[in-house]
């Protein structure tokens, strides 16, 4: 990075440390923080959409759809989420490949399951074995996002379903008295009012989501845990920057990173709660009304 870093073995003390911390691999380490933030930013809206869909399905008047919604909302209750994180990417990957296999290689006569192997025709492989490395990595990241979205969508569906039930019955009755149809009452009355009831649960979920991001490591993504282990491990004199086992310090840095993330989010969420309580028929809203007078 810097010109003075050309020959690391001649460096000492602070200069060495500065060159060490700006080496190419460390730049990858810092950019993997971006991967974590990217995962958070992509997963949160998708999970919210899944959760909204699940909650609406669980309230549906159409029986099979209601069953599906109920099953989805209760799926995460008794089973550790990490099982889903391990299961969903493999299952989805095989599902996609199997579908492509059916479409692209209809003349393939061998079974897909051969003993201990899952074999599809080369044209159905996802991603194709000829595609460059970054496509493989993006596909892995896509599967991870899907797993996170499905699991956190189920959590969010739980929260939103509860929030929809928490909107006072009188509000819906008033909407009916005004002659609104089910659909109108849902869109104009229920959905705008439920957010304040959903917010405590959703902000909790956001914290859980932040704390679940190191699990990316288990899905084979090169995230911050991967780089912390990789860079921290002891380096012999073959390397440019030899050092003993420093993984402890790297993980301490990760700990501080996550503590900062959670405490910053806590502050932001407290602001949003105050904003959303404004003018609502809840204790928080009532307090704001009295304070303003």
């Amino acid at each position, binding site marked *: 990075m810097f010109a003075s870093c050309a020959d690391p073995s001649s460096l000492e003390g602070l200069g060495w440390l500065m060159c060490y911390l700006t080496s190419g691999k460390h730049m990858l380490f810092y950019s993997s923080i971006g991967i974590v933030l990217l995962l958070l930013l992509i997963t949160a809206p998708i999970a919210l959409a899944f959760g909204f869909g699940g909650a609406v399905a669980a309230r549906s008047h159409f029986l099979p759809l209601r069953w599906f919604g109920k099953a989805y909302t209760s799926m995460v209750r008794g089973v*550790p989420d990490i099982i889903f994180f391990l299961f969903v990417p493999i299952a989805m990957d095989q599902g996609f490949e199997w579908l492509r296999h059916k479409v692209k290689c209809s003349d393939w006569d061998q079974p897909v399951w051969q003993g201990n192997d899952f074999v599809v025709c080369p044209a159905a492989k996802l991603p194709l074995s000829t595609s460059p490395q970054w496509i493989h990595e993006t596909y892995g990241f896509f599967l991870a996002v899907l797993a996170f979205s499905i699991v956190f969508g189920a959590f969010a569906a739980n929260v939103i379903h509860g929030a929809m039930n928490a909107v006072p019955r009188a509000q819906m009755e008033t909407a009916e008295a005004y002659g609104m149809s089910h659909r109108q009452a849902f869109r104009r009355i229920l959905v705008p009012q439920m957010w304040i009831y959903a917010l405590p649960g959703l902000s909790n979920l956001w914290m859980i989501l932040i704390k679940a991001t190191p699990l990316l490591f288990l899905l084979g993504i090169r995230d911050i845990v991967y780089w912390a*282990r990789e860079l921290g491990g002891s380096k012999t004199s073959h390397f440019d920057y030899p050092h003993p086992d420093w993984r402890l310090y790297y993980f301490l840095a990760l700990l501080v990173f996550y*503590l900062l993330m959670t405490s910053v989010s806590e502050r932001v969420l407290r602001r949003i709660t105050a904003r959303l309580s404004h003018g609502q028929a809840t204790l928080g809203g009532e307090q704001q009304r009295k304070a303003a007078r």
Partner: protein
Amino acid sequence: MSCWDTVREYGLRSIGIGERLLPRTDFTLCEHVTLIGSGMIWNLYFGILALFFGFFLANAVALAKASANPWLRKPAEWFIYLFRGSPLFIQFFLAYETFVLLPRAGIDIPLGFTTITVATSWLSKAWAGALIVLFLNTAAYSAEIFYGALRSVPKGDVEAADAYGMSGWSRFRRIIWPTMMRLAWPAYTNEAIFLFHATTLVYFSGFPAFQQRGDSLYYATYFASKTFNPFIAYPVVACYFILLTLILITLFGAVNRRLNRHLPQASRSRIRLRPQIIR
């Protein structure tokens, strides 16, 4: 090989009794169920011990956090913030790296007349190291629950105790603590359930599985990586955990009924499962 033979050979495999080699080819459903079930021993071990010891520490930390003395309150607040604000996964890694750095031969503590050697190598093994992390982690989460409950003990209860001339320890033991437990119990049940779920992380977070003695998810991943078929192994673990969750709800529900037995039916608090405190 009949299923009964499999159970005899692999039923206690996770604690090192029975067949040494794991099955390698022609996996049967029976092998899945037996080996993963044997791995549940470790999940139960971590969960039960961490929950038991964590309960006492959580009570102490909750009281310290509610204390007026800043020398007690501040450390308790920091302890809770540290363990609730960071991912359990990172805590496992950090603890493992710390324990590994301890000298293998043990630490010598000179006492003047003699020197005692404290063995430290067992700390980097999963059975001790991971248990310590889980113990501290659940203590922090439960302490926050207990602290919240302590804050919401009705004022009238405490005033009534004062009127009876109770004070100090007897007031705490006979009035405040039972009410605190009663209020905290539904949330504490959730904490217990998610602690058991969190035990599946142990063998994925640095702690090595000595001689392939791992927990249920360790074996499930073993099967899934050998067969490339996630549709058998993972549902089997899931079933075990649903069963475990139901047992936990039954046990904690019985305690909840006992804590609430003096109240009229309508005002008893029910246990509702809320996925709010996963790590």
